[in-house]
């Protein structure tokens, strides 16, 4: 049997590259920017496997351009860049990396929550700019994290990890999800299930942990922001388009809410003329919620395992569309 050909759309951890190179003929896209779509079409022409990221569009046209493709491995937990139905129709398994980034992402969401509440970025930048002249009893005051009510929209794995972290801060939790968690879990984490409007109205902190779907697109817009407390903090470490950025800008500018802390934006990267960047009450980090050394290493090796399983005709350890194996 010939050695399979693989295209890897970005530099990943060496450990993972070594795993793949041991079994396949690898072409690695080593630029920091993603390959342009046209280039990607050429690169996949003869490949059996593809390791890709959220920034790579994997659609029917691409699959047409890659007649040998039999393994798609995404290094992410989300896969909205991939036409999974189309892949399923063609019998191509799609791998992803769930689970591993749960704790790391919740850590970042909590870091954003605390930095926003305590005006940490503003304070740290003032120090760096030589503007720290004195201590003053009325400067840089923010809301208490301790004892504040945390609203969690989306009680999946990451939402639950947020609830767990909030326990150490004695925060009552309100949450909304399509699915309600069992009573014992609610009790364990001091969580109350409530309609989304109630969560928005009563929370001091609202943290979004939903997947991006047509239903969650601009889930937070004018109406929702209007319901929130005027000193509330909104945290998004999920996906940028879950929040309507124009509505968020207005709400922050007019004081409908107190603060926003974003790990994700719409679009990504944020454009430098985006008005959100002009606000003091909005902090933005560059989609780094899963960016810890151990997590990214695990994501890389998991993606390699999925890719190789697909190439070898074995079930992927973590497959988005396991129905391909039922045929």
């Amino acid at each position, binding site marked *: 049997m010939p050695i399979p050909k693989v295209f890897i759309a970005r*530099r990943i951890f060496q450990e993972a590259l070594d795993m793949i190179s041991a079994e396949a003929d690898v072409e690695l896209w080593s630029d920091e*920017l993603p390959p342009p779509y046209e280039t990607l079409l050429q690169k996949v022409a003869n490949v059996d496997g593809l390791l890709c990221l959220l920034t790579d569009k994997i659609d029917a046209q691409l699959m047409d351009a890659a007649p040998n493709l039999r393994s798609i491995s995404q290094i992410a937990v989300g896969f909205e860049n991939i036409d999974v139905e189309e892949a399923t129709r063609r019998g191509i398994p799609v791998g992803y990396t769930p689970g591993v980034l749960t704790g790391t992402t919740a850590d970042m969401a909590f870091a954003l929550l*605390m*930095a926003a509440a305590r005006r*940490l970025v503003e304070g*740290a930048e003032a120090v760096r700019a030589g503007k720290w002249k004195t201590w003053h009893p009325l400067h840089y*005051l*923010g809301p208490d994290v301790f004892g504040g009510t945390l609203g969690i929209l989306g009680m999946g794995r990451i939402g639950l990890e947020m609830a767990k972290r909030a326990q150490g801060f004695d925060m009552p939790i309100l949450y909304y999800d399509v699915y309600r968690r069992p009573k014992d879990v609610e009790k364990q984490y001091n969580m109350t299930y409530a309609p989304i409007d109630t969560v928005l109205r009563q929370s001091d902190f609202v943290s979004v942990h939903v997947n991006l779907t047509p239903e969650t697109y601009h889930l937070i817009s004018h109406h929702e922001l209007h319901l929130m407390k005027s000193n509330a903090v909104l945290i998004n470490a999920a996906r940028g388009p879950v929040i309507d950025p124009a509505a968020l800008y207005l709400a922050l500018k007019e004081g409908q809410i107190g603060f926003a802390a974003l790990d994700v934006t719409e679009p990504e990267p944020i454009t430098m003329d985006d008005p959100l960047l002009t606000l003091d009450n909005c902090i933005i*980090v560059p989609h780094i919620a899963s960016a810890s050394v151990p997590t990214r290493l695990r994501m890389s090796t998991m993606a390699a395992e999925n890719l190789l399983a697909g190439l070898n005709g074995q079930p992927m350890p973590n497959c988005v569309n396991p129905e391909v194996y039922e045929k």
Partner: protein
Amino acid sequence: MPKPKALVTRAIPQEALELVAARAEMDVWPHDEPPDPVTLRRMAARADGILTNIMDRIDANLFNAAPNLKVVSQMAVGLDNIDVAEATRRRIPVGYTPGVVSNATADQAFALLLAAARRLTEAERWVRKGGWKIAFHPLFWLGAEVHQATIGIIGMGSIGLEMAKRARGFDMRILYYSRTRKPEAEALYDMEFTDMPTLLAESDFVSLHVPLTPETHHLISANELAQMKPTAILVNAARGPVVDPTTLYQALRDKTIAAAALDVTSPEPIDPNDPLLTLENLVVAPHLGSSTVRTRTRMAVLAAQNLVAGLEGRPLPRCANPQVYP
């Protein structure tokens, strides 16, 4: 009887000002920056009581200039700006505000820990400068894991205990070193008591929660930093001089530790030309440990209550030198 005279050295929450104004003729320093020592002495000359904060130097010179002074009420839990021994010698009670700051300060220390671990302020600055040009790259901005990491808490007073409680929610292994062992808290938060060398060598995060005393001055210096892991992060939300800034600079520059996050510096405010500020692996906040609306209000109200009690010759509700009372 004329109302006593009270000097309040900075604007404080309204609720507290009203408490003082109801019982005293009140003079409030209106500027953001503190009065210089000469001005402070002049203003205190006729004062029966003074409500201070950490920026005001309260020493023998000040006491000499204020012969009527019956009470010093500090709006802080730390008293390193006040010569308490001298106040005691003169039988002047010194009030302070313990207890009310523990939660806010532990929150701030944990916020700093998270920010340093995940390079939050550095990444935010990068976005603002237009550095974010690639939506996502698997090897960019990698930071340290917080959950399930080991935290070493030095000083297990009320703030140290709150840190331990917060660390539990992140499933951290907790080591601590303190003068006094806390067996009940050990069981409650699943903590291990260790000696300093063990704590320094095994912790991913070292967080300082000791008061500033002659024993804790430069508690963390070259020798201690050298025992820490190269991946470790140092958090100081206690008092600046607990860490030797020169050796901290060297350790951060040479990457013998990974990062540090400071809410306090030595001196304070930090000199804008301090080499520490040239480092990317350092976050410095401008002493915001207690900076929440609720906490500052509680501190100010407690300070006002101490002040008024002192003016009226009653024992202070929270007194740092109760030996002044017979």
